[in-house]
């Protein structure tokens, strides 16, 4: 089963390599990995998408927790979460009818054309995996020159009940 694991780490050099090395060294699979700093500039958030049965995921999480630079590990798959990825798609649009078709598709998907040359458009899109796959499939007949995709980033949805309770407590206090 696919799992999205969110890892909060110390923002030190080599930390991404430690996390990635853990996966490769133990034969665990990485489907995608992305990393960026958080609000606190001394930490970074790494999002890893991986596959495995319960036993493997348990081992992955334990091993991640064991890394000295890892502050917190969350398996988002156990929660309600929002996941996004982004892609830049460069398409051939030499003929005028291709250009209008490209613009139409871009609009349907709420994507944007971010660069244009006489023979190409470059389209920017964000969304979940299905949405990105869908736009790629529609653009393919025009002729795709190049695609670059980020890995997934994910965040847990705020627990509505809990937030409400906390607000209530605040009001009462």
């Amino acid at each position, binding site marked *: 089963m696919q799992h999205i694991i969110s890892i909060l*780490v*110390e923002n030190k*050099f*080599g930390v991404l*390599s*430690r996390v990635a*090395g853990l996966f490769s*060294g133990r034969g665990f699979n990485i489907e995608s990995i992305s990393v960026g700093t958080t609000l606190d500039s001394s930490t970074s958030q790494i999002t890893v998408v991986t596959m495995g049965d319960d*036993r493997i995921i*348990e*081992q992955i999480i*334990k*091993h991640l*927790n*064991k890394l*000295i*630079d*890892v*502050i917190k590990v969350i398996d988002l798959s156990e929660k309600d979460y929002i996941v996004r990825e982004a892609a830049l798609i460069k398409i051939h649009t030499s003929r005028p009818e291709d250009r209008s078709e490209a613009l139409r598709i871009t609009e349907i998907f709420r994507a944007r054309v971010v660069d244009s040359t006489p023979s190409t458009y470059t389209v920017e899109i964000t969304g979940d995996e299905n949405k990105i796959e869908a736009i790629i499939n529609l653009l393919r007949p025009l002729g795709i020159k190049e695609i670059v995709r980020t890995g997934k980033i994910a965040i847990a949805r705020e627990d509505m009940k809990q937030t409400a309770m906390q607000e209530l407590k605040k009001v009462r206090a």
Partner: protein
Amino acid sequence: MKMSGAEILIESLKKEGVDTVFGMPGGVVLQIFDVLYNEKNLKFILTRHEQGAAHAADGYARAKGKPGVALVTSGPGATNTVTGIANAHMDSIPLIVITGQVATRMIGNDAFQEADIVGITRPCTKYNFLVKSVDELAKTIKEAFYIASTGRPGPVLIDLPKDISGARTDFEYPEKVSMRSYNPTYYGNKWQIKQAAQAILRAKRPVIYAGGGVILSNASGELKELAELNRIPVTLTLMGLGGFPGTHPLFLGMLGMHGTYAANMSVHDADLVIAIGSRFDDRVTGKVSEFAPKAKFIHIDIDPTNIRKNIHVDIPIVGDVRNVLVELNKELKTLEENRNQLIRERDPWYSQIKEWEKGHPLSYKKSNKVIKPQYVIEKIYELSGGDAIVASDVGQHQMWVAQFFKYDRPRTSITSGGLGTMGFGLPAAIGAQFACPDKLVFNVAGDGSFQMNVQELATIAVNKLPIKIVIINNGSLGMVRQWQELFFNQHYSGSIIKDMPDYVKLAEAYSIKGLRATNPSEVEGIIKEAINTDGPVLMDFIVDPGENVFPMVPAGAANSEMIFGESAKSVKDKTAAKKEKKNSVLPA
């Protein structure tokens, strides 16, 4: 007070209580060695190879129970320590390895003697640092010692660029370490401990299976209490030897591939296995699906990744082995009421174990014509009164030592368990002798493994270390030869060592006393002479070249499917038959 990075390093090591550092100098660490030149409270021991330095620091740590320290130069000096680091990593030994690095502005330029040692050692250290500013050096050293010696111990590497050693700053050694991302669990879950106590009292056929964690957390006293209080038989892993007295009536011997019949059968038939500071290594479990098939498992370990890695555990307890055992023993004592009756109900279990012990004790065919390797080990045990540190190397002799030297105390068995590093024994003995200068230290090696770090004879000679080196000389890489004999149709490919040096003359070349025995009648006299000699002695025992380690669980088989010396022939015939069958279906 302003100090240079080199001075800060040495002062920090002293503040950590380091008295001995093993290593070799080189270009980028000259500033550090310049500080060492006038240093009186910190011994620097020059080894002849950086691998030797790392193993010596490892042996020191195992014998002393505190981190060993190695100091080497950049590039080849650093990469030469990698095997030593990986070895310590597998066996969870606290080690601090300080490597020189080229100046920060040169890093990444393929400078002379540059290697990305932080990158190279990332998978085989517990943690590693590249020091980028002299201001963070003291804090880095404090953290390195803290990480190496707490939680599940392990090696930590500090890569120190040349310009940092030379830069100056105010020196202040931090008193405390606080790392938000590193918080080992030291105390076991109370409820789980209660569950474990209940399970232990209720068990009809319990066995304790303890490993190196017992020694690392200094818990052998607590282990003994647990076993004696509840009369539970104990088996140890290779790494656990000495963690429970080898002469104790409850001791079953080692388990696993070359373990005793009683230990393996006890685990196989147990209804409760209490795993303590051990990690279910494949050399221990044999075929995992048939390891203790009737048992419930309690597993105590400080490292949660060890739990449920290979085996389903019913009662996992994460925590320091010693702390957990203290609590567990306390809990068991409160459940006093009918202990004696419960223990009495286990009588059939004890008599079954006695039967196994009687049926297949550790043994070998004695001879008065050719020296049997096991006989040499028995004599070393007998003549030293068992009161010695034995650093063994890796191979057949290692297993014979594990079987026939009855370690009674922790930190006296020094051996490469996880990585199986040939060449470990000689430098490790050096480290152990520095850690325990008053103890009798043996290095038992095979003729194959001995040659892997033979240059360290010089370190022994120069430092006049009274180490007694024992070479079990069978003219081959014995364990490889044994596997080829049993499972590869006696094709002795690459395992026979021809044109061996004369080890006695070799010892003499280093001004070390050399002795040789070729006949069983000479064995005792030579060991006595070695023990009574003040300095180092090398003993070359020319042993039966055909002797094998038994009992044995073939790789991939269940522990209950052991083969003994007498049944080895049928195994050979079987593999030969299999081979023939395979050959017959091949096209001509």
